[in-house]
């Protein structure tokens, strides 16, 4: 027994000595060795953040796309394998064998391949050839908003647009993850290991409305192509907040294949290009003149039948019948002669101050890449006739973004709002780290002056130079502009190169949308802003108001429904005419709508205070309120249609 215990004690003692040796003396080295064998750090390439439209639709995202990489030193039977790879991938044998013969340990055969091809390459099981998945930026809407979004290079860094400007938010942090693995290399998740998530990029939400962006881009493309313009851009803004709802450029490009286009296509003209605005400057100068008390809307100015020599230059108008015009008419018919004289009523410093107040000569800081300042010459460089020329938009350069910010102020009652395109930035865990709020920078004109200038711009569309922007259901206010382009070599204006612009807001009394369209060097159709740019505004407004569920007021409806057969371009069918006639004296009774189309039925019943529920399509076969029923008060009606 004693021997047994002695043996156990000796054995225990030896174990203790060994344990002491392993734990204390050699412990540090052995722990390091074990860590090397079982612990590892794997590096995650963070997933780049997405870019979304205002309603959460993806505009830019990242997808993992397979590529074929190779360690040329590990590949045996190079000719045979190069032939196999060439057959599967379509890459030339010469190129592949060239890569395989390199004396390096890593090379790409092709960085982006189809998943199907990747699987087939994997099946070949060539030693040294591996499939590597790499994040690739993908723009599911193709060219939509391309100039604003920009694009990303092969190393996942933004190269242009939002992708570049907000790269530090979108990219996220390269993150090492501590893991423990077993002898087979499988990861073991134990407390303290591998529980941290990789730091993915933040998601950016823009103020852009995808549908409005599409129609803006669509109509800009269509008109710019038809007009033969070299370039064009359009900006659509909510004038009450300064939020940019759409921003389109022509010509467009597809950011998924940006390298296939020259750099000329990538530029976001709406913010980077400044141009002499021409007559779209007039409302800003006239507002300033009204504010300073230099003119009133009914002040009469001699427009000299369109030719006005002043201090060595001759200011001319498009028409020679412009005689004595009120300020209202000067804006309505866009008289340069009249505007020149308004400009000359300013002291130079006064006008210079007003340009600054409108935001010309300063970056708008809307959160876009490459915003230009525009050019307002320093006061000491103004010629004697500087105020005259600048009053009708010559000798001063502005950007589209600056002009629409000024226009928004006129539309919203006189407040300069800070334009913005970033709605919010959300981190990968859903926490909002930035949220934009509409910001009033300053009140620039009084409500009285605002009302006066709005009225003048309304006249432009009603009977002046902007009639191509007229809508039937809504009142549009705007201003046309046709600016001459200067030859950078001589400084003189080209005789046949113009910038055709149009800016407008709608509805006239309570504007919800403001828009500017500028086309560079339109060569076909016309070079006037009122002829080539106003139709874009009209088409966009017409559809945008529908998309935003902005409908004409009740008065407009009444006018539309009660004003005869073909007023407002609405042609009533014979049947509707008959029913309206029958109803004339009995407007308090429910008509028989049986057999009517949906359009005709709704046209008849909209005069009643009804909540309508529609089922089916085609012709009406059921109405829950019987014909002849009393229709006073608010009621619900169900209409059923079938083909």
């Amino acid at each position, binding site marked *: 027994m004693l021997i047994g215990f002695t043996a156990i004690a000796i054995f225990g003692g030896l174990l203790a000595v060994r344990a002491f040796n392993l734990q204390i003396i050699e412990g540090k080295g052995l722990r390091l060795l074990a860590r090397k064998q079982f612990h590892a750090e794997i590096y995650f390439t963070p997933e780049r953040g997405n870019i979304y439209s205002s309603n959460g639709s993806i505009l830019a995202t990242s997808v993992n796309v397979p590529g074929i990489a190779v360690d040329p030193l590990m590949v045996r039977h190079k000719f045979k394998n190069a032939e196999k790879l060439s057959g599967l991938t379509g890459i030339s044998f010469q190129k592949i064998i060239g890569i395989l013969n390199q004396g390096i340990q890593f090379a790409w055969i092709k960085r982006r391949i189809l998943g199907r091809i990747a699987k087939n390459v994997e099946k070949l099981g060539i030693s040294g050839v591996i499939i590597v998945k790499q994040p690739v930026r993908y723009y599911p809407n193709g060219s939509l908003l391309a100039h604003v979004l920009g694009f990303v290079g092969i190393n996942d860094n933004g190269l242009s647009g939002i992708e570049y400007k907000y790269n530090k938010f979108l990219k996220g942090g390269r993150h090492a993850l501590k893991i423990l693995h077993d002898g087979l290399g*499988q990861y073991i998740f134990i407390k303290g290991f591998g529980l941290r998530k990789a730091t993915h990029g933040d998601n950016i939400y823009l103020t852009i409305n995808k549908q409005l962006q599409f129609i803006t881009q*669509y109509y800009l493309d269509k008109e710019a192509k038809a007009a033969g313009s070299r370039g064009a851009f359009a900006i659509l803004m909510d004038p009450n907040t300064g939020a940019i709802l759409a921003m389109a450029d022509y010509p467009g490009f597809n950011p998924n294949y940006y390298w296939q286009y020259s750099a000329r296509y990538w530029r976001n003209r709406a913010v980077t290009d400044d141009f002499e605005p021409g007559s779209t400057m007039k409302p800003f100068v006239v507002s300033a003149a009204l504010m300073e008390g230099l003119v009133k809307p009914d002040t009469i100015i001699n427009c000299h039948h369109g030719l006005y020599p002043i201090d060595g230059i001759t200011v001319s108008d498009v028409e020679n019948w412009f005689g004595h015009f009120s300020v209202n008419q000067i804006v309505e018919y866009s008289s340069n002669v009249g505007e020149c004289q308004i400009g000359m009523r300013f002291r130079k410093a006064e006008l210079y101050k007003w340009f600054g107040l409108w935001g010309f000569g300063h970056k708008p800081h809307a959160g876009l890449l490459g915003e230009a300042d525009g050019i307002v010459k320093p006061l000491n460089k103004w010629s004697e006739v500087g105020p005259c020329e600048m009053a009708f938009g010559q000798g001063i350069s502005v950007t589209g973004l600056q002009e629409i910010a000024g226009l928004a102020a006129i539309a919203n009652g006189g407040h300069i709002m800070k334009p913005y395109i970033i709605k919010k930035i959300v981190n990968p865990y859903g926490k909002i780290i930035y949220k934009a709020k509409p910001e009033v920078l300053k009140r620039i004109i009084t409500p009285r002056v605002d009302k006066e200038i709005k009225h003048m711009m309304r006249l432009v569309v009603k009977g002046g130079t902007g009639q191509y922007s007229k809508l039937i259901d809504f009142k549009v206010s705007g201003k046309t502009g046709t600016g001459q382009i200067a030859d950078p070599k001589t400084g003189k204006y080209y005789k046949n190169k113009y910038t055709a612009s149009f800016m407008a807001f709608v509805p006239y009394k309570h504007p919800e949308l403001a828009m500017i369209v500028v086309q560079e060097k339109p060569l076909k159709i016309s070079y006037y802003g009122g002829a080539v740019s106003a139709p874009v505004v009209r088409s966009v407004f017409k559809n945008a108001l529908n998309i935003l569920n902005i409908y004409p007021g009740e008065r407009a409806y009444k006018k539309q429904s009660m004003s005869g057969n073909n007023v407002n371009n*609405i042609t009533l069918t014979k049947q509707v005419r008959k029913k309206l006639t029958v109803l004339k004296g009995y407007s308090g009774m429910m008509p028989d709508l049986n057999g009517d189309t949906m359009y005709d039925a709704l046209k008849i019943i909209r005069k009643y205070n009804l909540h309508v529920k529609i089922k089916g399509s085609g012709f009406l076969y059921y109405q829950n309120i019987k014909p002849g029923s009393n229709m006073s008060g608010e009621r619900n009606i169900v209409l059923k249609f079938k083909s």
Partner: protein
Amino acid sequence: MSKIKPYFIVLIIMFTILGMFYVWTTMESIKLGYDINKLNTIKSGLEHKHKELLIKKTALSSPSRIYKIAKKMGFIYPKEGKIIMVHD
């Protein structure tokens, strides 16, 4: 000696039980670690699939694609004055 013996035996049994318990919990922990790993793989696979579907949905609902299809089917934007507002 005979007095110490039962305590010693009890001690050894206790240590053995404790040791076995420790080994069992460690084994369970590792097993759960593997399970978590498997579930994480499934989860990331599903997340990947979800993202793929989301992207597909976005590409399919791209306004330019819808416009082309609608045009083919003969749809047009309503003309001005042809929209009637009703209260629902």
